[in-house]
């Protein structure tokens, strides 16, 4: 499909933002640019058709089942968009509450922040939350910065952060970017092994980053022991909230001893992922870490009015220009209000039920390396099929032809030919059954017609794309 730049016709008028076309006389000529910008000239209908056509070349949850492990692609209810589009929220300038006399002009927005933080505290069992981090990985970085600030304040000399081998790649990256050395610890039988942890744990460890359930979909049942071990060396325990959908209402990470936690609101609390963002990655902390949270903190006066507190002498400072992705956590807030405590627990129960149901239906057709009760996702492996030349990637592409987004493949790295499936609580049983039937049918093709898999997809706008060529030719813009 042609790009919008190729469709441009010089001189064609688009949508005027206003009348008038003032002179450029206000700015001296030597400070102005030479020539045109090179943006498209198209009519409004040209633009509407172009982007409507583009959208039709895309899978989204509204049209396709998205069983992407670790990504929690549940249905995003529509009413939250109505909330986020209310002019009372969208038109608020973020500097407003920082002006003397203007706090009264944004009490509603500040209340949303205050209430959302309170709800997240109760859901996770943490003492305090900041909504500032703008994505999950941003929350991780904020969390590790908090770790550094905590130890610095106590005069601890800490240089290392422990990350299990089953962790998301962002965990070690965040720890490294915050200035720590990363130490990996191997899993045993799919979960963190206290004996292996003991070997790498010493006084220089600032903290450990854990995901529970982990990326194999397994519950880390040694948690209480791990917490005790870390306490002994004054190391903090960090919780990667990517998989919170599996435990809401069943366990609170604060109660079991985590000191820092980030949540991916777009996953657990159903805010649309938008093809890659924006997300929101709030960070919760235990009492001893709270003084280090980013500036500002929203607080409530005795008269019930909300204000931003900038007097935080031990704070790590600004991680965002303002208060995070307000428009995103506003949707999460509305979603939590809609479900309530029972609804959140029910979501967790059904997410776990669906994953175990699919695991059971598929485990006779694919190897499932840890074939026991799982949480909200499980990892199958195409290693048997790979011996016959059909790989996890081929199954992924075969599923695209059937109208599903593919599961996560080749992750976690510790399972060869991994196919990681997460159905979420919002898919009905017919969809789960049909997906299993279709995947089993694809497995049957490995012997009868492997070509049908290795040449998939054939029903989409393009067939398999040459990624090597893209990296070599580096065509990154539409140069005419």
């Amino acid at each position: 499909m042609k790009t919008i730049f190729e469709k441009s016709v010089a001189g064609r008028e688009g949508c005027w933002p206003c009348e008038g076309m003032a002179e450029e006389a206000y700015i001296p000529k030597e400070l102005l640019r030479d020539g045109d910008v090179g943006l498209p000239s198209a009519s409004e209908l040209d633009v509407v058709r172009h982007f409507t056509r583009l959208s039709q070349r895309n899978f989204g949850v509204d049209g396709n089942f998205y069983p992407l492990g670790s990504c929690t692609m549940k249905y995003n209810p529509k009413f939250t968009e109505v909330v986020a589009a209310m002019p009372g929220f969208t038109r608020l300038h973020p500097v407003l509450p920082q002006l003397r006399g203007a706090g009264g002009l944004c009490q509603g927005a500040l209340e949303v922040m205050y209430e959302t933080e309170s709800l997240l505290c109760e859901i996770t069992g943490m003492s305090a939350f900041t909504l500032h981090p703008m994505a999950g990985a941003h929350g991780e970085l904020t969390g590790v910065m908090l770790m550094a600030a905590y130890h610095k304040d106590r005069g601890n000399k800490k240089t290392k952060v422990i990350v299990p081998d089953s962790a998301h790649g962002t965990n070690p990256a965040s720890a490294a970017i915050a200035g720590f050395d990363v130490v990996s610890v191997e899993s045993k039988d799919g979960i963190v092994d206290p004996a292996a942890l003991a070997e790498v744990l010493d006084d220089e460890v600032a903290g450990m980053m854990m995901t529970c359930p982990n990326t194999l979909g397994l519950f880390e049942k040694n948690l209480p022991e791990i917490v005790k071990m870390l306490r002994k060396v004054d190391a903090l325990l960090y919780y990667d909230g990517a998989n919170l959908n599996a435990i809401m209402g069943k366990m609170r990470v604060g109660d079991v001893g985590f000191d820092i936690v980030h949540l991916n609101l777009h996953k657990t609390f159903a805010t649309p992922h938008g093809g890659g963002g924006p997300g929101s990655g709030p960070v919760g902390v235990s009492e001893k870490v709270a003084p280090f949270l980013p500036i500002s903190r929203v607080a409530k006066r005795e008269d019930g009015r909300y204000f931003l507190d900038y007097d935080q002498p031990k704070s790590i400072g600004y991680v965002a220009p303002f208060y995070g992705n307000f428009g995103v956590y506003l949707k999460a807030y509305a979603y939590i209000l809609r479900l309530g405590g029972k609804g959140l627990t029910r979501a967790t129960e059904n997410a776990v039920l669906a994953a175990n149901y699919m695991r059971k239906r598929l485990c006779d057709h694919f190897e499932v390396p840890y074939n026991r009760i799982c949480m909200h996702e499980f990892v199958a492996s195409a290693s048997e099929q790979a011996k016959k030349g059909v790989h996890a990637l081929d199954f992924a592409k075969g599923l695209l032809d059937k109208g599903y987004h593919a599961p996560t493949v080749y992750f976690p790295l510790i399972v060869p030919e991994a196919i990681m499936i997460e159905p979420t609580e919002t898919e009905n049983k017919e969809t789960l059954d049909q997906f299993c039937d279709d995947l089993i049918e694809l497995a049957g093709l490995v012997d009868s017609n492997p070509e049908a898999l290795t040449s998939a997809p054939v029903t989409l706008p393009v067939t398999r794309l040459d990624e090597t060529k893209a990296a070599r030719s580096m065509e990154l813009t539409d140069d005419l």
Partner: protein
Amino acid sequence: MPFVPHTEDEVREMLAAIGVGSVEDLFAEITQDMRPKSFDIPDGLSEMEVLSKLEGLAAKNATNSVSFLGAGFYDHYIPAAVDALTMRGEFYTAYTPYQPEASQGTLQAIFEYQTAVTRLLGMECANASVYDGGTALYEALMMAVRKTKRRKIVVSEALNPIYRVMLGSYTSNLDLEFVTVPHKDGRTDVEGLKAALDDSIAAVLVQNPNFFGSINDFTELFAAAAKVKAVSVVSAYPVLQALLKTPGAMGADIAVAEGQSLGLPLSFGGPYLGIMTCTKAMIRQMPGRIVGRTTDTEGRTGYVLTLQAREQHIRRQKATSNICSNQSLCALRALVHMCALGELGIKRAARVSVERAHICAERLTSIPGVDMLTKGAFGNEFAVTLPVNAFEVIAKLTERGFVPGFPLGRYFDGLENGLLVACTEKTSEEQIGIFAEMLRGALK
């Protein structure tokens, strides 16, 4: 229960297939000592009740006030087509495009976005965006540190102070040193910046127009930086870039911007859009997603995420950045916004905004005791000094639903009387007239 489709019969069938007696059996590994000490979340509400509650909260915000607040974040007009197109579920409810064949819509849109922002800034390459203008600046700084393996950074004090504070926070645990060159009456001190350059400097960081609205040509500064092999980084205001000499034409190595003014509502601080562009020579240092054009097995054009070897899911702790996702939907909004306005529309928005600001400056400085702080050329934002403390004037006018601007004293000692005023094409001449009269009254 909302959004869970299973009937009781279906739940029973699924439990039977799994071979357990109850849903609770699935959670047996979470032993009693790990169960919640409380879970005191109110009962759920109906959709109607939630909307009504949130309408009430929205109504507690005064959004009908007239505002001249900018400080890097501007209220430009957004064509209706932007919402209509970007709210399509195929875009809105999609994931990061890991399966390119099923994500050509998202991928081609990012490719077009990369094209649009590189043209706007006159640069060669762009990524698919990062969180906001501040994190874009921080990532640019880290690119320079990796590239040069040096640890000193020269920063202009006329750079948005919010971003300067962010840079300090992000790097507090790293072995880096900042050299801040003070502004000169609101102007970027180009000579001072040049003097601070030597072969120990990783990067020089400036902004155009600067925080006070003053427009610069940094060509000489960037040439001086190139001479000592320091990386030139500029933070630009994208709407004005439709008119201004580009970072590329000035010789910048990296140009970043806050993309909020390209089709994103102010929305109390987010979500916003961090635009990152650079020269070809810097591309492998660039963090985040990048989309490239390629072909499929039939020779047809298609798009994929590319240069992923820099990223954390492959390089883990050795990745260029921990940034995993981007602001894809915000980038899409910016692209649709630029396309809907088109070449002529965006120039029109920029020119009218500049004109309104100049009319406003003239009206305000005709008031006795009000003088221009911003000297020389400025765009749609400028600073004035008042005969009294700006905080007081702002408080007085804001109580009457009129927000006159940003108090410079919040970040700059000695500028307690300074007021930063922004206009856009949405600012009417009538509003400017009222502003001038109110200010005149307040100063009497």
